[in-house]
């Protein structure tokens, strides 16, 4: 490998040797990434080369805001060759509060140096409280930190649904007024922010977007929510491994039944797969071991913005409808329809009885 790409690759090759990643594994990773990005085999060496440009490793600054750190957790559980190594050593993560070894003064210096040098990839995990004093790091508001680091970044990746739209911390009633990165930074950064929805983020998607950037020096094509179309372009329902059960009308009606054991469709258990655009059924989680539906849980739609509120009632197929003017009064759509139908039937019956005189008169004429 060193021969092929020259001395520039020394850092990487040493890193790989140090963390006992085999060349085969590394190339396998490159192949997987090429597959994820929809590139041909011919790109595999190019991907390897892009990652291997040893001396010019793009610095990554990973900021943690209001979240449960699930995305970092997802990152360190990731695929081969151990994405923690990949992202930490190959991509040079200068700062990540959760997994960095350094602390205090030392790490603040690194962070400030990155900020001064600029041209880093800014990864933001977690929502941003927009009220003063509701979320602070080292005496600074999270919102101010985000605004401080955003201008010098070459790309901003909002990972996980907390960072993209607020996620769980921003769920109703949201006392700290948490917002997503795009909402906080505003339109000026449109096109520069990539929203990687899902809770937690799928690390293969994250790595693929970074590799895509290294390879082509641009961000992938984004949809209206700022998500890469490549990954968030298709409905979970359309790629679901249980779709055949849906099409054939085989449903789980209740948990703990034979149907559930047989792995039938979870549509009636409130699965939000038919409303969610995400790559879960294709890429899966935890080294491609499993994902929610494979594990037997209905999808809660965490790939869609505002899922915590709009999909609430995670085991209900549709949310309840609140009647305007009556706060707190909620009905299911079924009940509303049925009530209106019954009222109509009663009304018609009453009207028919009342009309009997007219009908009689009509008969006499």
């Amino acid at each position, binding site marked *: 490998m060193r021969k092929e790409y020259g001395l520039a690759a020394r850092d990487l090759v040493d890193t790989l040797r140090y963390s006992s990643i085999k060349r085969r594994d590394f190339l396998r990773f490159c192949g997987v990434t090429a597959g994820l990005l929809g590139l041909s085999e011919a790109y595999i060496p190019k991907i390897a080369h892009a990652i291997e440009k040893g001396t010019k490793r793009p610095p990554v600054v990973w900021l943690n805001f209001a979240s449960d750190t699930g995305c970092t957790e997802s990152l360190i559980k990731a695929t081969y060759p151990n994405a923690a190594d990949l992202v930490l050593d190959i991509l040079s993560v200068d700062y990540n509060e959760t997994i960095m070894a350094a602390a205090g003064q030392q790490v603040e210096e690194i962070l400030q140096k990155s900020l001064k040098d600029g041209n880093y990839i800014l990864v933001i995990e977690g929502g941003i409280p927009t009220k003063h004093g509701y979320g602070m790091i080292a005496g600074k508001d999270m919102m101010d930190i985000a605004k401080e680091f955003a201008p010098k970044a070459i790309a901003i990746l909002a990972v996980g649904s907390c960072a993209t739209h607020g996620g769980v911390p921003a769920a109703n009633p949201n006392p700290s007024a948490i917002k997503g990165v795009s909402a906080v930074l505003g339109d000026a950064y449109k096109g520069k922010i990539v929203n990687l929805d899902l809770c937690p983020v799928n690390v293969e998607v994250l790595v693929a977007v970074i590799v895509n950037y290294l390879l082509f020096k641009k961000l992938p094509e984004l949809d209206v929510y700022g998500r890469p179309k490549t990954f968030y372009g298709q409905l979970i329902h359309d790629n679901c491994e249980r779709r055949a059960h849906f099409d054939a009308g085989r*449903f789980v009606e209740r948990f703990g039944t034979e149907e559930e054991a047989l792995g039938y469709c979870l549509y009636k258990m409130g699965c939000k797969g038919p*409303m969610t655009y995400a790559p879960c059924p294709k890429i899966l989680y935890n080294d491609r071991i499993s994902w929610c539906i494979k594990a037997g849980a209905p999808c809660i739609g965490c790939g869609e913005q505002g899922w915590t509120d709009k999909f609430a009632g995670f085991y209900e197929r549709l949310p309840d409808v609140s009647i305007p003017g009556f706060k707190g009064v909620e009905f299911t*759509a*079924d009940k509303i329809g049925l009530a*209106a139908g019954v009222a*109509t039937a009663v009304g018609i019956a009453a009207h028919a009885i009342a009309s009997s005189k007219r*009908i009689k008169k009509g*008969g006499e004429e």
Partner: protein
Amino acid sequence: MPKKVQLKYEWNWAYRIEHWVHVASMIILVFTGFYIHWPFCLAKCPYCDFNRFLHFVSMYTLIIGLAIRVYMAFFSRFYADWKDFSIIQNIKGAPEMVAYYTFLKGEHKEYRKYNPLQAFTYLSWAGLIIIQALTGLALYTGDVFGLFSSQSAFGWINRLLGGEGFTRILHFLIMWYFIITAVVHVYMSLLQTLVKRDRTFQSMFTGYKLSSATGKKR
């Protein structure tokens, strides 16, 4: 008092076919729609994919049917009825019809084809078929008429309503409006037939209605 009664050709073949195509597609849409909403009678009915297929085909039929119906309203050589749907005219006439149907008044003005309440209902059907088509397409993931991606063209509706779940709820509640008004529609035509003995109900099959010469025409 014997009135002079004559047969009147009320609906030509085009109107009748259009009507029954709408009826058929509506019935299929409601049935399959309920199935998609909550799959039932699992072992005996056609399965989900077939129900969805029928649902989509019927909706396409309905959309095309509406387009033809609007064309007929303006250019039918038999009877172009677009003037009968004049909102201003019908607002003026509506109170009398409401009074008639609530037994406050014994008689009402005769209309050429549709009384004001009818005209409003049919106009609302036309509007709501369009809304059903739009909300349906916002939920659909295929290509509209096989031409362009439904999601990229109509995804904004989901964003407007706050998510697919709410689009579904709207789609579902409008279906109930169709069910209710359709039942009322059948009831009213039966009632008219019984009260006036003018074969209104049969006219949608045969095309002919009995017309009393005394009725005021407009």
